[in-house]
């Protein structure tokens, strides 16, 4: 109870309210603009929030995370373009509803079910984080190493079609994590004479380069067609009728349940949850034929699921130290710089923090909901903003934000290098997520594995049921997508007549 009271009262500082407001506004904006995702926005914001107190900074980052999941529904519904990947499933029924003249109802319903999903996810955080951390506290070096491998392979498994390249990106990230002081002996490794690298590769420079600059460089290099989306501007009625409200209940419950489960799985985020929930709600619906053609049920399931993942993601991140999704991977980097190492020990050192974060998310949810209900026309206008203005602003923020962390030009140069590396990775099909995760979790993986090996060789890892279980799950995470695509290819081949082959 003390931790709850301390966690909530820590937010009475009025500056936290200001940080929340800034975060919610920024989150809604970045969510509404296709091309800027929550991960990218949180990475950019990490640059300037590091100069704030940890709670203030976390208030900005978390409220961007929450509000982006409200803002991204606007282009999904009005332009058929998801503002962030989390709203992919919102387009399935949101855009058809908008075309039927029900854009206002779709936007309002989406905001309401998103808020419900978000609050349910936060409840998971409050209820499950502590017990999960208590279990994880019993983990020794072998289990911690296996946990890091599990997190990394989960991100590889869900982050792209090419698992092999994802694994290579993860290994390269772990290798980057070895730069700087050895976590056990303190010896300096791979610094190439740069004193700036003695404490490792700066996370923020790497994250901004790989997530922010690389995407912009890719857009600049590609031959893109002029594609100014024309949003549907006739919103129509905006509040759902009683019958429509009743229609939202069942799919929202399905979506929230799916989102809560998917959110706890490391690295799986709102995009996966949205599509799974949409399919489940269709199966459970009395009118499955309407799904994909403008069904409020489909929209409700998808949107409640993607926001419900947030609480689960934060739970996994705080309790296990393994990011629940890509935004959390960035957030872990910021927390480490603030001296807050996510993981079971956090619940011993700062038990009140989890309640502070949950309260921040509750406030951010209500503020984002309020903004979502009053802002519609204004955000629609945002969709017409020329791309070059956004590009210029983002590049400037990337540079100044990276510099601001340590007032170091070296960091800016490093960020530029990571931007170019990220560009090459994108062009050659390597996902950036596993590399960032490897960089962040590398020292944790190395120190725990080496400690485990010193205790009793590989036997320490292989005799721990938890470690073996996690490693088997990791193997499954890597093999499953490959097996699935192989069986799909085999089925396709079987369907093609012999004469055609």
């Amino acid at each position: 109870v003390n931790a709850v009271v301390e966690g909530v009262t820590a937010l009475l500082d009025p500056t936290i309210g200001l940080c929340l407001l800034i975060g919610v506004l920024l989150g809604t904006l970045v969510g509404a603009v296709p091309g800027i995702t929550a991960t990218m926005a949180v990475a950019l914001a990490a640059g300037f929030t590091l100069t704030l107190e940890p709670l203030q900074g976390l208030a900005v980052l978390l409220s961007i995370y929450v509000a982006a999941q409200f803002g991204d529904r606007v282009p999904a519904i009005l332009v058929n373009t998801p503002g962030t990947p989390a709203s992919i499933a919102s387009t399935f029924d949101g855009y058809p509803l908008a075309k039927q003249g029900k854009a206002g109802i779709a936007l309002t319903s989406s905001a309401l079910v998103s808020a419900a999903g978000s609050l349910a996810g936060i409840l998971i955080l409050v209820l499950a984080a502590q017990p999960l951390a208590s279990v994880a506290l019993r983990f020794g070096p072998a289990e911690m190493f296996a946990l890091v491998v599990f997190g990394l392979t989960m991100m590889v498994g869900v982050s792209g079609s090419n698992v092999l390249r994802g694994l290579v990106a993860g290994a390269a990230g772990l290798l980057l994590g070895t730069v700087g002081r050895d976590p056990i002996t303190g010896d300096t490794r791979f610094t190439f004479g740069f004193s700036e690298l003695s404490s490792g590769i700066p996370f923020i420079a790497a994250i901004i380069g790989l997530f922010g600059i690389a995407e912009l460089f890719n857009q600049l290099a590609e031959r893109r067609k002029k594609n100014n989306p024309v949003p549907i501007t006739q919103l129509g009625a905006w509040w759902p009728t009683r019958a429509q409200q009743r229609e939202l209940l069942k799919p929202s419950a399905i979506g929230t349940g799916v989102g809560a489960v998917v959110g706890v799985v490391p690295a799986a985020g709102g995009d996966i949850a949205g599509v799974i929930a949409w399919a489940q709600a269709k199966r459970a619906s009395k009118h499955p034929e309407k799904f994909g053609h403008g069904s409020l049920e489909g929209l409700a399931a998808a949107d409640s699921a993607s926001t419900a993942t947030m609480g689960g993601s934060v739970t996994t991140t705080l309790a296990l130290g393994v990011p629940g999704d890509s935004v959390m991977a960035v957030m872990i980097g910021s927390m480490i710089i603030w001296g807050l190492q996510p993981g079971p020990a956090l619940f011993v050192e700062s038990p009140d923090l989890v309640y502070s974060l949950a309260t921040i998310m509750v406030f951010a949810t209500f503020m984002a909901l309020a903004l979502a209900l009053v802002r519609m026309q204004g955000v629609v206008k945002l969709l017409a903003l020329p791309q070059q203005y956004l590009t210029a602003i983002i590049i400037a923020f990337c540079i100044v934000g990276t510099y601001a962390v340590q007032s170091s030009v070296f960091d800016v140069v490093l960020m530029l290098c990571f931007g170019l590396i990220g560009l090459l990775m994108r062009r050659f099909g390597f996902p950036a997520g596993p590399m960032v995760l490897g960089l962040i979790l590398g020292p944790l993986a190395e120190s725990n594995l080496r400690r485990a090996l010193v205790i009793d060789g590989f036997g320490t890892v292989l005799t721990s049921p938890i470690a073996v279980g996690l490693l088997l799950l990791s193997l499954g995470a890597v093999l499953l997508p490959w097996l699935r695509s192989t069986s799909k290819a085999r089925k396709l081949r079987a369907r093609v007549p012999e004469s055609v082959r």
Partner: protein
Amino acid sequence: VKDVPVLSAPDGVADTGSSAVTDRSAVEPALRPGRSNGRGLLVALAVALLGGTAVWSATALELASVDGSVGPGWWPTVLGGLLVAGAVAIAVVALRRPDPLPQERVSAHGLGRLGTVVAAIVLYGIGWQFFHFLPVTVVFLSVLLFVTGGRGIKALVVFPALTAMVLYGLFGLLLRVPL
């Protein structure tokens, strides 16, 4: 997942950090079928070089406190070895199946634009060391906007000046970053 309607690849949504792949085009660079074994082999070569360099650098480390096989050089050596193994696997896959090409092609114009932006960033970094943040940033933003297609007083003067002032106000004055 069955019965998911076909979704057109959203322009620019391709985010790096996304966790999912329900619509792959939305979360990673869209790939189109192509016949390029050389591409896959090139990737394998680059990964092998990285892994080989890691192994070589790790074994060449001069560390005072190494007292056994599980020293500071052990983990980078393992990772280097994994990268080399990954390179071999990529090469084998490339020989069996052509590497898919990215959906959007890089154009000469695009590369020129990218090169100009990178050069502008480098010059901005240098200029920042000698001149005040505000004028250098205004010029930098104007160049960025010009390169990306911005024209007119509003795009090339008013917007860069306002943005530079916001950046200076936020970082220089509010957060007290020595710009």
